[in-house]
Structure formats: C-alpha cells, structure tokens
C-alpha cells in the first residue's frame, strides 16, 4: 500500500493519461497519429513505473519505447504507402471488442478475488545498482540469452529488409 498523497494523485493522473492515450491509439483514424499517441502511452506508463519505484525500468522504457520503438514504427509507417496509413479495423472488430471485454472482466475478477500476500516494504531507494547485480549474478544466463536474442533479431531484421540489388542510379528510357 502506498499512502503518500502526492504519489497516489500522480499515479491516477498517469493512469488516466496512459489509458486515455491507449484508447486514442484504438480510436484515431490515422496510423501516424496512432503511433504518436502510442509514444505518449509509453511515457505515461513510464511515469507509472516511477510511482511503482522502478526508476531504472522507467528510464529504460522512455529510452527504448518512446525513443526507439515508436520511431521505428513511424519509420515503418512511412515506408508503407499513403493509402495504407489508415488505422481501420477488420471484420473482427466486434468479436475483438467482446473478447477484450471478457478478458478485462476475468482479469478484474481475479485481481479482486485473490488474496494477495501484501508486504509493507518501503519503496526501493535506488534500483540501478541492484538490478545490475541481479543481471550479472542470478540472471546471467537469461541476460546472455537476451543479448543473443537481440543479435538474432538484428540480423533477422537486416535479412528481411535487405534489398536484393542496389537501386538503379539512372533511370532508363525517360
């Protein structure tokens, strides 16, 4: 339980921002605007992480999600033609809505129904150093696997988007 007034208010403001922007991602009609709202969602989520005293994760979130992933998405959006930049829905809109509603209901029910083992621990003071310890001691194998995964992802992305031949320098028959 967090009892500091300011932090609670901040959490609800950030939660409202995050959820609102996430709804806008679903609602706006243009893909580029959706990406921008998604970036805002990421920033709001980072704020929630700070409230949950995870400052390292929050900053990494801003750096990677808001800084890199959303930029990557803009890049991908701009690589596709203008006609495909609508943020429209498939025929599965209604089933998806129903399914999402059901999932939400189940999750909320489980959340409220479970008897959580709550601790009265104070907030973490600084997490970066202890996270580093955790990565290099108990979690060193997953850490290495993650780096290999990133490597594979990088190579895969390069292979996928590679041009077979260089673009022609001069246009013939103009």
């Amino acid at each position, binding site marked *: 339980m967090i009892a500091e007034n300011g932090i609670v208010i901040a959490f609800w403001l950030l939660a409202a921002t995050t959820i609102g922007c996430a709804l806008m991602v679903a609602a706006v009609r243009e893909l580029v605007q959706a990406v921008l709202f998604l970036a805002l969602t990421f920033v709001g989520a980072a704020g929630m992480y700070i409230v949950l005293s995870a400052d390292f994760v929050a900053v990494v979130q801003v750096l990677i999600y808001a800084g890199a992933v959303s930029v990557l998405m803009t890049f991908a959006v701009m690589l596709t033609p203008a006609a495909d930049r609508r943020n429209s829905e498939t025929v599965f809109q209604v089933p998806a809505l129903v399914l999402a509603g059901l999932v939400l209901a189940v999750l909320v029910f489980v959340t409220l129904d479970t008897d959580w083992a709550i601790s009265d621990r104070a907030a973490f003071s600084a997490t970066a150093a202890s996270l580093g310890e955790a990565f290099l001691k108990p979690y060193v194998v997953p850490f290495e696997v993650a780096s290999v995964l990133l490597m594979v992802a990088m190579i895969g992305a390069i292979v996928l988007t590679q041009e077979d*031949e260089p*673009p022609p320098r*001069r*246009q013939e028959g103009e």
Partner: protein
Amino acid sequence: MPIKVEPVEVNIGPQHPSTHGVFRMVAKIDGERIVDVKMVVGYLHRSMEKLAEERTFTQNIPFTDRMDYLAAMSGNLGYCLSVEKLADIEVPERAQYLRVIFGELQRVASHCMATGAFINDCGAWQTPVMWCFRDRERVLDLFEMTCGARLTTNYMRIGGVAFDIPDEFLPALDKLVNDELPKAFEEYEELIVGNEIIMMRARDVGVVTPELAINASLSGPMLRSAGIPWDIRKADPYCVYDRMKFDIPVGYNGDSYDRMTIRIEEMKQSLRIIRQAVGDLPGGSHKTDVPLAIRPPVGEAYSRVESPKGELGFYVVSDGGPAPYRWHVRAPSLINLSVLREMTVGQTIADAIVTLGSIDINVGELDR
C-alpha cells in the same frame, strides 16, 4: 525485390535559398535520389533583346550591366567589342589595357561570389560567402573609385572606356593585387580547397564528361573542369590579351570540386594578368571620339569575350540606323545550365544543390 515507390515531384525554386535567383528546378525524387529534373526558366525575363532594338547603341550598354549583374564589366566589354567590330572603330591602347584590367578584376569579383555561394550550397552557414564577399568588396571599391558604381558599372563605351582611372587607383590596385588578394587566396586554399567535408560533398558530384561538355557547347570553368583547355582569351584574343602571359587551369574529373578549384586558380591567373597590364599600361587617351548616336554601317557582327561564366557572345545586326536591328546574346549561364539534367539525375537532392551551385548561373543573364 525493391519496394515499389512512386517518385515525388519537388519544386526547388523559384523561391528557394539555393537557386541563386528565381530559377525553378522541378525535381522528381525517389527517396533522396533524383529521377528526373525539369528546368523552368523565365522568371526574370525582362525582354532585353527586344528592348534593345528601340534604343541607340550607346543606350544599350546599361542593359549589359543588368544581365550578369555580378560581372557587369564583362558584359559591357563584350557588347562594346561587337559594336566596335561592326562600326570598325579603333580603340586606343590605354583603353584596351584598362579594359583588360577591369575585365580581370571583374572576374575576380565574380569568382569570389561563385566560390562563396558554392560553399554556402554545400551547407556552410554563411561564413565562406562572407569571406568571399569581403574580397569582392575590395574589388568593387576600385570600381566605385573609377566609375562611381559598384555593381552596374556602365563603364565601357563604344571606342574606349567612360572615364580614365583616378590618381589613387593604381596604388590601391597595387595593394589589392600584390597584398590583399594573394593573402585571401591563401586563406581559401587552406579553408576551402583543403576542407575534407567539401571534398566529400563536391568530388564526383555533377560530373561532366568531355564529350558532353563539347557537344552541349559548354564554356568557361564548366568546360575546363572537364579537362579541355579552352579559353576565348587564348582562342580568339580580344583587347590586348595576346600580349599577356597566363595559363589555363584545367580539371581532371569534371566534377563540382574541379570547378571550384579552377575558379580559385583562375583568380590567381587574373592577378597575374593585371600585374602585366599595369606594368605595360601606356599613356594617352582613354577613348576615341565616337558620336553618341552612332550609326554603324549595314551589316552584322559577333564578338565574344571570356566572361567569368564562360563564352559571352554578342551578335549585333545593324540596318544603318541609330538602333540595332537585332541584338542577341549568347549567355553562358543558359548554355551551361542546359546540362543540369545530365549532371543531376541519379544523385541526391543535396548533390543537385551542390551541382547547381557549381555551375554558377546568374539568373539575370539566364533570362535576360
């Protein structure tokens, strides 16, 4: 299998920071790469060739100022030479030497401007252009001293030059030619010619092959950069250029960098010519007596000079009246620009801007 894209048409100009006036270049762009270029000229068309038919031969001299306004002296000179050829007028020695001196000073001024503007097109933030302006201003000071005008000099006359040089001119010229400008050129040498970024930007950009250069009738630094030693001052000497010793700087690759270095070398050769001309400057009259409303005999004449941009030719037809029957200008800017498409297609937008800057067009002369 490459991504299918449709080229985008981008208007570079008529209002654009790097078109050196109101010239429009419609570029079809695929990503950053240029697929096609269309040149649209005529935004500064003032109908000079037609207007000239209504004015006397002497009254037409100011038009030549306003064509290539960065090299007014060369325009004056070319036009006066053509009328003198038509009317068979003998020009005094002193006037011929003065014409050489001012023509070469004008070349220095124009090339300063061209070099500075070219570096500006390469992306330097106004600094080189200001430095080049500083040296150009020194030359323009001499013009002002002599004829009262800096830009539109209106100095040459049919049969000579308008005014003799004042007493303080030669000391000032001596200081300029032997002290200030050589120092400035050393600075250019260090800051511009040896600059790695400029080399990266200008090398192999906007290449003109010798075949293209000759077939497209290019002239001036454009032609010389392609490796062809050609200069009207040597090929068809006018005034007293046949008495002057100077070399023709010639490039290797025909790229933008060659054009820039050639301009800098040409400025040095100009100083060499000026030194010789000042040393040989004879006394006597600066002007023959030519009637103001001169009526050349019926006939036609074409005379050409090596203006800073290239071969500037004037074709004058007289029907015996006080005004030319037909007046045509072979403007080097227009003809040099005609190969822009060949030079830019396949390169990026940034390269196209650099190429355009290296051609050194002057829209006043382009559209007339």
